């Protein structure tokens, strides 16, 4: 975080042609030239490396097709539902585990060790339970984001500086005032960070499930482009997807004040 802060500062002091910007432009230009050379040479199989022009056209075609936005809406809805269900249950479980040493010791190891297991392998089960429609994708996304959020909240609750709780008590705060004015703001960074991690894995879980078995959503479009061997379209979709997901990630971080000292 400090790094990006420094970078931004450097960018402000010399807006256009700082050495960093020059190096970046050089790298981008180098990659593009190399790409175009490979595309033109035909060293790789036909269309594995399509020309930049083709990719550019595909991106424009994608962004100007209403169909794409409909699929994007389906996926966004699935991710939103997954994040809501997984986030709320994660918050609840995290509060219980973080608030009680006993519960934490009893159940947290399970979450801790189950967290980094591959979730996509549960997809066959999710299909049996929730069918082949969006519900099974939501279930997989929920499973994915529950763990990082619950673990972040539990850890955040334990990391609250005890002196802040003493300050609250010294001013005789009521229970709800303690929760609202001390615990929640003191935990804002771990909570936001948990949501950020949760969004990342919910997105992966949902989209992978869509690529495996579905008839709608961005994941479906990607695998459809694969089966039609429409490489420019696949590149276009991956590029747009990455930009969207990196943007959403940065947005949550910004809203949570993760890279600045500003408040929530």
């Amino acid at each position, binding site marked *: 975080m400090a790094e990006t802060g420094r*970078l931004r500062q450097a960018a402000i002091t010399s807006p256009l042609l700082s050495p960093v910007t020059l190096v970046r432009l050089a790298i981008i230009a180098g990659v593009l030239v190399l790409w175009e050379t490979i595309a033109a040479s035909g060293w790789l199989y036909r269309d594995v490396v399509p020309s930049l022009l083709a990719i550019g056209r595909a991106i424009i075609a994608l962004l100007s097709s209403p169909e794409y936005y409909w699929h994007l809406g389906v996926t966004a809805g699935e991710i939103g539902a997954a994040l809501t269900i997984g986030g709320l249950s994660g918050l609840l479980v995290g509060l219980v585990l973080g608030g*009680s040493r*006993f519960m934490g010791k009893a159940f947290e*190891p399970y979450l801790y*060790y189950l967290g*980094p297991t591959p979730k996509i*392998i549960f997809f066959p089960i999710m299909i049996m339970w929730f069918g082949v429609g969006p519900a099974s994708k939501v279930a997989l996304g929920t499973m994915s984001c529950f763990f990082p959020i619950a673990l972040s909240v539990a850890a955040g609750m334990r990391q609250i500086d005890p002196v802040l709780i003493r300050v609250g008590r010294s001013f005789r705060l009521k229970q709800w005032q303690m929760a609202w004015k001390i615990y929640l703001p003191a935990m804002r960074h771990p909570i936001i960070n948990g949501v950020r991690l949760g969004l990342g894995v919910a997105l992966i879980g949902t989209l992978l499930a869509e690529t495996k078995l579905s008839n709608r959503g961005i994941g479906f479009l990607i695998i459809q482009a694969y089966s039609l061997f429409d490489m420019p379209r696949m590149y276009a979709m991956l590029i747009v997807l990455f930009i969207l997901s990196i943007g959403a990630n940065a947005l949550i971080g910004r809203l949570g004040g993760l890279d600045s000292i500003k408040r929530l």
Partner: protein
Amino acid sequence: MNRSALARIPGLPALFGFGCLVVSILAFEILIRAGVINRFIVPMPSQIAASFERVIIEEHLLERFVLTFKECFYAAILITLVGVSLGALLHRVDLLRRATETWVAAAASAPTVLMYPLFLVIFGRSSTTIIMMAFVAGLPPVILKTIEGLSGTRRVLINVGRSFNLTQSQMFWKILFPAAMPTIFVGLKLGLIFTLINVVGVEFLINFGGLGQLINDLAERYDLPGTYAAICFVILVSVVFFVVIERIERWLRPAD
């Protein structure tokens, strides 16, 4: 007060947690036998346990495990060599680091595994696709943590090196690298976890290779207890994998 006193009794919370796990498994068994839960959606835990033997023998579980392990191993070697070298390079060339570190961080948060259809086109349905996918997904944290570890070396240690007139390469191998080891290993830990997740995940998705394909196969054959048993086995493998990495990390970390 009462409960925090209970929490201090060694082993009791863990016992309670384990007890709850056992009780919920038993509850499932009873509910399924009673017909409350449909046994064609959730097989009985006893059935799952019973099918382990069958899965091990008939589905060649151990051979598949070895295949998955090999893929993880090659990807791990790749992310270690490439990640640490790239990290060291970026640390050495500050301008390059300042230009690209945010890109690497962005790549770390991007859903790179969605590129698997692309890799499928390039490398075909093969182990190479799986290994490359795991490599791409596991690389960014290793690079980032290597940079962090190397630039976080305490000033005084560098000054010690200077006072002994160390050459650049001595400085790197004798001071910077050992000092950065614990942090680099944190990156490797993350990278290896991503590796395992991606190897198994892509195996499942492209229906090729070891344990991931086994789950896909069993599910397509509607072998419910077998599917559940295979999933349990994969979870077991990843938990053991994770615990081992944790142990190594703790062992590498200087006592403080």
